[in-house]
């Protein structure tokens, strides 16, 4: 086909004025060279870096190519003041290391700069309430829920190729295998990265696809973030390491306690690899978990918070310090107190009469006299904590 009916040309022109380089266009290296229309179903050709004809930029406007992490201390040691879009970021850490908090803060910062974020929730553990508390805007968060890593990579590749998202977070689930001495039953893992036995068959393919996804993301100026749990098969872990221009390793150092309760943690971040700056630097992240309710006001009062070691106390300590009873209603706080993020002004809640089960007619839920409310976490803490260690 060497000529095109006018309606085709008109349709293409109309589409181009609206979608810019993402629109289908005539094939061939020379724009005015006749050829077949491409891009209808195939991968859209990656555009050159140029503004949309209508002045709407294809990339977020004030991004400067760097996405802040949301933790000033970490941004300070990353060289360009954040994560470069081209770099590809791997965040490695065990459970409760804070890597998910870091990922969501990164997403919130990216959205604040105008990005659309896609979250590949392979682990099926994304909590939107928590995400909102960390500053994420759900209306600009695409959530992909694949059933396998293969599917996750295919979906992610399609999204990156279409340049519809600017930040892609791939949340890999931890490998779950039974170990001796567990003494109990547990549900078989619904989804996991292939184990060592199968890795010989499948992992090389997965590793290759990870590498291709990372390369595609770099070309498309999409920041790819992989949350890497420990215990991944070597080919997968190696592929992630090779693809990431920036690799962070998180390790929790202490818990932060408010009385007996654990309300946060201090996590050490080590820049294990950094193509945009010097590796080996360290920073401390202070992460606070708020439960919602009146007690959260205490999180702003530094003298009430204590750092606790990660080691568990002995059994003897359990007997010496009995656990708290079912939590009684905390004392009401004064009006006007502001708690972190989202910073809603708290007003003392009406407390149920002691010794009776109150039927709350707001929604018909029966509540015991103690507090039985949904948690409302707030953000992490560099704003309220002591200066973080660089």
């Amino acid at each position, binding site marked *: 086909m060497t000529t095109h009916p006018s309606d085709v040309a008109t349709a293409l022109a109309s589409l181009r004025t609206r979608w810019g380089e993402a629109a289908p266009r005539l094939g061939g290296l020379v724009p005015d060279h006749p050829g077949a229309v491409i891009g209808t179903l195939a991968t859209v050709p990656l555009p050159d870096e140029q503004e949309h004809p209508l002045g709407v930029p294809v990339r977020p406007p004030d991004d400067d190519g760097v996405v802040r992490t949301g933790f000033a201390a970490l941004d300070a040691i990353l060289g360009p003041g954040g994560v470069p879009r081209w770099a590809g970021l791997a965040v490695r850490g065990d459970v*409760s290391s804070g890597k998910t908090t870091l990922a969501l803060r990164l997403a919130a910062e990216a959205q604040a700069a105008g990005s659309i974020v896609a979250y590949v929730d392979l682990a099926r553990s994304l*909590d939107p309430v*928590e995400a909102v508390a960390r500053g994420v805007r759900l209306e600009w968060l695409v959530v992909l829920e694949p059933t396998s890593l293969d599917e996750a990579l295919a979906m992610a590749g399609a999204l990156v190729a279409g340049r519809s998202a600017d930040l892609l977070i791939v949340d890999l689930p931890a490998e779950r295998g039974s170990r001796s001495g567990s003494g109990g039953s547990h549900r078989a893992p619904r989804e996991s990265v292939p184990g060592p036995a199968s890795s010989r068959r499948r992992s090389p393919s997965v590793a290759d696809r990870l590498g291709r996804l990372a390369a595609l993301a770099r070309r498309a100026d999409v920041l790819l973030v992989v949350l890497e749990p420990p215990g991944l098969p070597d080919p997968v872990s190696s592929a992630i390491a090779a693809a990431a221009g920036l690799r962070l390793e998180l390790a929790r150092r202490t818990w932060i306690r408010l009385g*007996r309760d654990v309300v946060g943690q201090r996590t050490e971040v080590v820049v294990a690899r950094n193509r945009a700056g010097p590796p080996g630097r360290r920073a401390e992240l202070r992460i606070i978990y708020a439960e919602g309710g009146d007690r959260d006001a205490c999180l702003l009062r530094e003298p009430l918070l204590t750092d606790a070691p990660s080691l*568990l106390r002995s*059994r003897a300590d359990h007997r010496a310090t009995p656990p708290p009873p079912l939590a009684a209603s905390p004392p009401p706080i004064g009006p006007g107190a502001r708690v972190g993020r989202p910073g809603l002004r708290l007003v003392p809640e009406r407390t149920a009469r002691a010794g009776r089960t109150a039927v709350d007619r707001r929604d018909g839920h*029966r509540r015991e006299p103690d507090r039985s409310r949904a948690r409302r976490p707030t953000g992490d803490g560099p704003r309220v904590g002591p200066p973080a260690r660089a």
Partner: protein
Amino acid sequence: MTRLLREHPPIDVELDAEGRIVAIVWAGRREPVEVCNRWRIDEGWWRQPIARDYVKVVGAHWLALVYLDRIDGTWHLERIYD
């Protein structure tokens, strides 16, 4: 950020003589833990009752939220703080 495990996987717990949780067993891992907070929820008593005792536990590796389903007597993991 906490991870909300939507399927609330069942877990095993170890209790001491006083009935307090001293360890959690999940996905083949045993984690000695300490209780740091507890609360109770009763929901939907007029239709499909939900009765749970939530326990926030901390160990050397985890900070997690588990609950006892008082209706069928099973323990579940709802959330991991990460």
